[in-house]
């Protein structure tokens, strides 16, 4: 597998994955204190997918995300502090506290929203790709979705439509092994790559713990999309470290399943090993990034907790319409 | 005079198909002179006092107050007191038996005059022609925000005796929305452009409000084209103008905003009906109208004042000129009728607002006929 990334790209990749990990681990801890309202679905363990794909995107490109969307947000450039405030439901949140964990979005950055509906994002990504194609912006769109979403009619419809309209679009199917508590090995019939082939769409399966593998597959798919070659599918296989939602005791999983994964297949550890072996970055540099990110997330949590809640009198009824 | 004379539901303007007799001004048995107000007629656009076209004793109110009847339906019967009741009854029975109500939008509408467009160097000008005859026609020029329908009561009266042409100024009605500079001279050029397009050498001009300034401009720059000039509450004779009206008209996009603005035009604000407001809004909703009206308002009424005076020009005119003004006009004050050249006849109409040609159509028609008789 190619390691052809510039030094800047390597540093960016590690730093972004670490930011997501630190962010999610911290949400996990803070959630347990009861201070975070509502649901949170954590991306820890899956960082290589969001970062490996978004490495090839810029602000003219759009992504549609999922209920497990914090990682996609950070990888697409959303501000982690504003995200944390949003998760705490604060006025300073990225969406003013009106969206929460499941609806974090930053349209200006091409992040079209985490999504509370499984399979909800693929049609939207088709639309973003259509905009890029119609306005000839040179942009592409990415539809992130899980193994659960892969079975939704919206995904099937969108794959067909993307091919029929020849859209600059990449379907990234993040197969973390479980749709809620049900195993993808049971719920997904056939294989996603063959499904893509059924639509005459290039498809590839990659190891989702290996950011270089994801990045390589994404590079090819994004280039195809940008050059008018139409949609592709990337089937990313990996696992998540936490439950479907925070509070999920994960009794449907094997007892030491996550522990083994953390020890042997962790995307950050694998990255450190690979760049160490190839003598591309030294451990001290990476340790410094870890420390920097820890401080950032500490600040994010402290600032979020200190921030004001939205004002019921002023904020409840605004932002429904542009004009009504 | 043993003759029995019917009074029928009048047709105000092109689109009226029916009207309601709101209330009677004369009781049965009272004498009615021609031109005397007989009843109030309410249409969906406006309520108007209807002046009896004939004289005699009102023998029968055929229409009940509040009753809606088609245009042409019998509303009253006038006759000498000597005519027996039985003859009146027989007359009504006979009239009703033979009356065929006009079908709305049906075949009968074919002969009705229709607005049409003429191409001029200032763009397409929409106009409505009615009446005929060989003499110079009457050309009717509306004011700011108006259109050819402002003459809906007056034009049919004038058209009985001669050719009449009511036009939409640029930016107004169905005429082109590009206004050029939008000043009085450019509007006058459009009127001249229409005369050229219709091969009319000279005409009797009637200008209302801003249309008054437009016709004054034309009369002073091309006097050979003007037989007589009638100015109704004209702009151009003073500096005041009701800025609330101009601003309100420009800004209003909803019924509730527009209705009070239009009500300023009439001495009796209750005359304004739903459909008149809706028609003005229909015009204002068209793309380009806001820009056109804004351009005209800025050019003609800068800072809410009248930009140009035609008092001097008026003094230099050789054609017969008259000024007609409602005493209750709050748009352009009637005081502007003071101190005009002696040759100019001034008629002040009591209880009348800015829209004398609608509020007092018969009287205005008689005044115009009178002036044209002097030409």
């Amino acid at each position, binding site marked *: 597998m190619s390691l052809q990334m510039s030094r800047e790209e390597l540093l960016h990749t590690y730093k972004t994955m670490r930011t997501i990990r630190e962010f999610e681990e911290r949400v996990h801890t803070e959630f347990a204190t009861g201070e975070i309202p509502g649901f949170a679905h954590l991306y820890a363990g899956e960082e290589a997918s969001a970062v490996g794909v978004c490495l090839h995107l810029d602000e003219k490109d*759009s992504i549609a995300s999922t209920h497990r969307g914090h990682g996609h947000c950070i990888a697409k450039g959303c501000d982690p502090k504003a995200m944390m405030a949003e998760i705490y439901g604060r006025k300073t949140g990225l969406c003013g506290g009106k969206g929460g964990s499941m609806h974090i979005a930053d349209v200006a950055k091409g992040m079209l929203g985490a999504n509370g509906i499984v399979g*909800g994002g693929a049609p*939207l990504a088709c639309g973003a790709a259509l*905009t*890029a194609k119609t306005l000839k912006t040179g942009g592409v769109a990415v539809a992130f979705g899980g193994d659960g979403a892969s079975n939704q009619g919206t995904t099937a*419809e969108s794959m067909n439509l993307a091919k029929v309209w020849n859209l600059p679009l990449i379907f990234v199917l993040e197969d973390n092994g479980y749709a809620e508590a049900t195993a993808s090995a049971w719920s997904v019939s056939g294989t996603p790559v063959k499904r893509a082939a059924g639509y005459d769409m290039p498809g590839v399966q990659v190891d989702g713990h290996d950011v270089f593998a994801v990045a390589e597959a994404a590079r090819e798919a994004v280039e195809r999309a940008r050059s008018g070659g139409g949609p592709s599918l990337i089937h990313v296989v990996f696992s998540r470290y936490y439950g479907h939602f925070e509070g999920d005791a994960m009794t449907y999983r094997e007892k030491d399943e996550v522990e083994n994964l953390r020890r042997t297949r962790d995307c950050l550890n694998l990255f450190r090993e690979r760049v160490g072996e190839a003598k591309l970055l030294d451990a001290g540099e990476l340790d410094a990034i870890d420390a920097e990110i820890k401080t950032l997330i500490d600040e994010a949590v402290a600032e979020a907790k200190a921030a004001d809640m939205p004002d019921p009198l002023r904020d409840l009824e605004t932002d429904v319409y542009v004009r009504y | 005079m043993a003759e029995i004379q019917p009074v029928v539901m009048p047709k105000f303007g092109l689109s009226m198909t029916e009207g309601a007799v709101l209330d009677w001004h004369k009781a049965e048995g009272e004498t009615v002179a021609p031109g005397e107000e007989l009843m109030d007629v309410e249409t969906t656009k406006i309520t108007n006092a209807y002046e009896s076209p004939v004289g005699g004793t009102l023998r029968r109110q055929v229409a009940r107050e509040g009753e809606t009847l088609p245009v042409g339906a019998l509303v009253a019967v006038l006759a000498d007191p000597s005519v027996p009741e039985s003859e009146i009854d027989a007359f009504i029975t006979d009239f009703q038996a033979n009356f065929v109500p006009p079908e709305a939008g049906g075949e009968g509408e074919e002969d009705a005059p229709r607005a049409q467009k003429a191409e001029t160097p200032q763009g397409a000008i929409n106009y409505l022609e009615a009446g005929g005859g060989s003499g110079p026609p009457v050309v009717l020029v509306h004011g700011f925000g108006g259109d050819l329908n402002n003459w809906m009561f007056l034009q049919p009266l004038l058209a009985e005796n001669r050719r009449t042409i009511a036009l939409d100024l640029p930016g107004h009605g169905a005429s082109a929305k590009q206004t050029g500079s939008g000043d009085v001279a450019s509007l006058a050029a459009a009127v001249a452009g229409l005369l050229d397009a219709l091969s009319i050498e000279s005409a009797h001009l009637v200008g209302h409000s801003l249309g008054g300034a437009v016709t004054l401009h034309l009369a002073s720059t091309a006097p050979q084209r003007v037989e007589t000039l009638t100015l109704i509450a004209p702009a151009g004779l003073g500096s005041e103008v009701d800025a609330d009206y101009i601003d309100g008209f420009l800004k209003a996009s909803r*019924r509730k905003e527009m209705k009070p603005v239009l009500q300023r035009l009439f001495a009796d604000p209750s005359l304004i009906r739903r459909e008149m407001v809706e028609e003005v809004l*229909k015009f204002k909703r068209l793309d380009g109208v806001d820009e056109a009206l804004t351009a005209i308002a800025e050019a003609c009424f800068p800072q809410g004042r009248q930009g140009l005076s035609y008092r001097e020009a008026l003094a230099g005119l050789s054609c017969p000129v008259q000024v007609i003004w409602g005493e209750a006009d709050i748009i352009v004050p009637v005081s502007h009728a003071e101190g005009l050249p002696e040759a100019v006849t001034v008629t002040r109409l009591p209880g009348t607002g800015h829209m004398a040609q609608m509020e007092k159509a018969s009287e205005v028609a008689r005044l115009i006929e009178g002036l044209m008789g002097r030409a």
Partner: protein
Amino acid sequence: MSKKSFRQAINEAMHQEMERDPNVILMGEDVAGGMGAPGEEDAWGGVLGVTKGLVGTYGRERVLDTPITESAFVGAAAGSAITGLRPIVELMFVDFMGVCFDQIFNQAAKFRYMFGGKAKTPLVVRTMYGAGFRAASQHSQSLYPVFTHIPGLKVAIPSSPYEAKGLLISAIRDDDPVIFFENKMMYDDEGEVPDEAYTIPFGEANLTREGKDVTIVAFGRMVNLANQAADALAKEGISCTVVDPRTTSPLDLDTILECVEDTGRLVVVDEASPRCNMATDIAAQVAQDAFAHLKAPVRMVAPPHTPVPFSPSLEDAYLPTAAKIQEAVRMTMNAAQREVA
């Protein structure tokens, strides 16, 4: 100004807006006439010919046929709207919202609020509604109350060719998602329509009749029936105000209340099923805000609570008619006079 059909008015609105704004695109089943088919180009222009001629003028990059996959293309329209286009999407029959409703009510309707005001969704969903076409239960419903219920959506229901053109242009220029309801029985109705582009503001009711005895509020095609009823009642000496709200969201409740205050009696005519429809909503709001002005109970004229039937004898009995409206008005006139404080 010239006589145009409801269909022509809608077609002209799309033509003029596509001409004016290159970001306006159109998509839907067969709207470009049937892509890939071997016969003539632009054969259909949508199932009832409303989009005919657009693909020839604006090309296949802006007029897009879709597979029969409503979730994907309605969602794509929403996604294109938040990223810079102004899509008009034709959802052939509103009954098909069942296969794409998530994209409308969970996605498009909510972006702006969920994203803290940092998204615009200038999306128009044009869709056919209404019974009378012998189209049976899955192609005849009047589902506008369902969409009216959703905050974030606007809902327009034109009652004439003039209204259709002006409201559609307003919808296309609007920065919020609009569901635009076209009654399939009205496509050949004719009326005077200006040739120029024009807009009709949302949330401003139109009074198509003005009277003093009874207020009739009606929507879409029902406005025409209400007008017929009002004209017939005028001959009996009952004068009615007819209110066409034009949009159910936003709803011009002020005008309805003012008319009820003037007349003291209210009849609401709604083609939608009778539970939780616009009639029940307006009756409730009038009861809350104008109770003291009511001289008689509010009456609702709506179909029975059944699916739309197929057989002509049943469907004709199902629909509100001018006669049913007249009967309801007479009932409000004859109701025992209540002492008004």
